[in-house]
């Protein structure tokens, strides 16, 4: 307990301040910070996952799967009437829409990842600012306490800043005997005494992503909890997993369609042409062979042999790829693979949502406990005010009585000779 020494030399003002005491228990502070850190970690993860889901828009009508279905339908329809150029044009439109949908998702995921990176940089900057603030407060508090005073306002301010640090990165504080607060994140010191050990941000070329955070001791920084933990997890695990999945999906689709398409013959007997070009989701395009206005439609191969305008067997084979187990070591169709990915993302989102809510409730309960000890209740204060007032009145009454007594003794007694 931090107390201010009674102030001497102030007799005669009517009241003597014994001490101004600040209510807070380090135990509650620690637990509260741990829980808010967890809550904000999940809240950050939840927000990012929501954005990823909105980007993929899989449950709406604009999903990738309806586009993929339309693509297969295009081939199947062409197989039933292969010399019909209207059907070929329709297939080309569907293929362009599919490639476009894949591209848009790839770009959006990339942008989303960069956004998280920016958010991470901002958080690190905020942590560094707060760390410097806490260090300055530490110095001031130690100085004031050394002369025996209680710097209550400064202590409140320092607690507020450490609370925010806990929210950001799961920081923990330990009060030292001299009143200074030692702040650490995941075992690495952030503030010792009046020295802030700020985090360093450098560009990480190995991660294809710029921001790499290092502690002051040159160890890589890992936030155990807090918003940063959620953001880092989203940037380095959740979003890359979706990107890899999308790339795998696009690559498998392109290579399998191309492999079949190259064996077939177009209406103009063109053969060996690729249908798609590109290597991943970002670079996936419908090949120029198909989009060229002059003979692109004729180049679409639907026949298994040259000079067979009525042969739609190749188109049928390509359409049948929708049921082929092309992915996950030959255990999943393209559709199953992507659906599983959407499902996994959904589960993760649900988990983040639930955890954020649950941790939030626990943090709230702890905050209430802390408040229960240290907070101000107006009713309580009013009651105590009345109590004090009554005590004052009683004292006043006593004074009057004593005054009366003295009056009687001095002015009423021993009036001899009057």
């Amino acid at each position, binding site marked *: 307990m931090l107390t201010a020494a009674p102030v001497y030399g102030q007799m005669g003002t009517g009241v003597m301040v014994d001490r101004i005491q600040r209510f807070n228990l380090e135990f509650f502070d620690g637990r509260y910070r741990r829980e808010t850190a967890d809550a904000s970690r999940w809240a950050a993860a939840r927000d990012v996952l929501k954005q990823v*889901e909105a980007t993929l828009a899989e449950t709406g009508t604009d999903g990738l799967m309806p586009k993929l279905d339309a693509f297969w339908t295009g081939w199947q329809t062409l197989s039933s009437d292969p010399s019909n150029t209207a059907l070929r044009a329709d297939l080309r439109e569907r293929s362009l829409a599919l490639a476009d949908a894949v591209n848009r998702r790839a770009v959006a995921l990339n942008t989303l990842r960069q956004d998280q990176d920016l958010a991470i940089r901002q958080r690190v900057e905020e942590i560094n600012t707060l760390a410097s603030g806490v260090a300055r407060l530490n110095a001031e508090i130690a100085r004031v306490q050394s002369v025996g005073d209680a710097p209550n306002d400064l202590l409140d301010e320092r607690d507020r800043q450490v609370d925010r640090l806990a929210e950001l990165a799961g920081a923990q504080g330990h009060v030292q005997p001299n009143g200074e607060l030692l702040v650490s994140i995941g075992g690495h010191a952030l503030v010792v005494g009046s020295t802030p050990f700020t985090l360093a941000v450098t560009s990480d070329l190995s991660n294809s992503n710029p921001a790499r955070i290092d502690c002051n001791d040159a160890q890589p920084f890992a936030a155990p909890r807090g918003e940063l933990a959620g953001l880092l997890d989203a940037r380095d695990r959740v979003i890359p997993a979706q990107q890899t999945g999308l790339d795998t999906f696009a690559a498998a689709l392109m290579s399998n369609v191309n492999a079949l398409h190259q064996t077939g013959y177009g209406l103009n007997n063109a053969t060996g042409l690729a249908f798609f070009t590109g290597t991943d989701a970002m670079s996936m395009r419908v090949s120029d062979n198909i989009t060229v206005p002059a003979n692109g439609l004729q180049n679409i191969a639907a026949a298994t042999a040259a000079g067979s305008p009525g042969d739609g067997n190749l188109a049928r084979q390509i359409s049948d790829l929708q049921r082929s187990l092309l992915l996950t070591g030959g255990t999943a169709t393209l559709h199953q693979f992507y659906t599983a990915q959407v499902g996994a993302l959904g589960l993760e989102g649900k988990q983040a949502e639930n955890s954020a809510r649950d941790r939030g409730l626990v943090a709230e309960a702890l905050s209430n406990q802390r408040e229960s000890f240290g907070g101000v209740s107006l009713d309580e204060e009013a009651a105590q005010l009345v109590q004090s007032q009554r005590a004052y009145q009683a004292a006043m009454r006593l004074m009057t009585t004593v005054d009366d007594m003295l009056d009687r003794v001095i002015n009423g007694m021993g009036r001899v000779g009057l």
Partner: protein
Amino acid sequence: MRITNRMMTEQNIQHMQANLAVLTRLQTQVATGKKIQTAAEDPTVAVAGLSLRTTLEQNEMYLNTSVVSRDWLTANEGALKQMTDLTTRINDLALQGLPDTQGADERLALGTEVEGLLRPLVQAGNTQHQGKYLFAGFKVNTQPYTYAGATVTNNLASTADAMQHNIAPGQTITVNVDGNALLTPLFSAVIGVRDALLANDPAALQTALAPLTAAVTTLNNTRTTNGARILNIETQNDRLEQINLALKKLLSDKEDISLAEASAN
């Protein structure tokens, strides 16, 4: 527990927030008619919905293809029926020319009529459906038969290609008829009958009757097969329509809200 004013305010705000969140979710459900907006709300439903929608789309795809297939098969049926009618008449004429009571003039008249029927028969072999020759195999843009100088020429060496259409997952149906296998013997049999009649040769006519009968049998068999395929497609169509309905119901069960339930909540 000691209660302070700030605790009360914060708890009230929190509870209001929680209730508002529930209200928003229910209102969105009512407005969109869907139980979930994102996969995170219920991953199981979302994944089931995705699979169902794809199955539905595939089903529609098979339904659309089956319409094309049925059109083609119906066009086959039309051409084959015409051929049967013509061949029946030719067979009648051949039988009329057989008795010894018939003289050279009568046989000449019969032969001329057969000659006249051969032309529409070849035309039936060149029947087009949406600009494509029915009996030309994969060479749908090439006219398969030419009738000139009293003979029929096969323009295509082979018409044995089978046009296969998907009518269900992993199930295909052949929609075309091998023109040469059916028509080459038929044409040559008809030409044999015609030549025997024109030459007033009852013995040759007698010999020419056997290939004609064989060609007629092939024609009838082909027509039966074609008819069976039409029937197959139609049953398949009925089944697909039923599956479609069932799938739509299932999808609605999974994804759509009950308005009454949402309102009550």
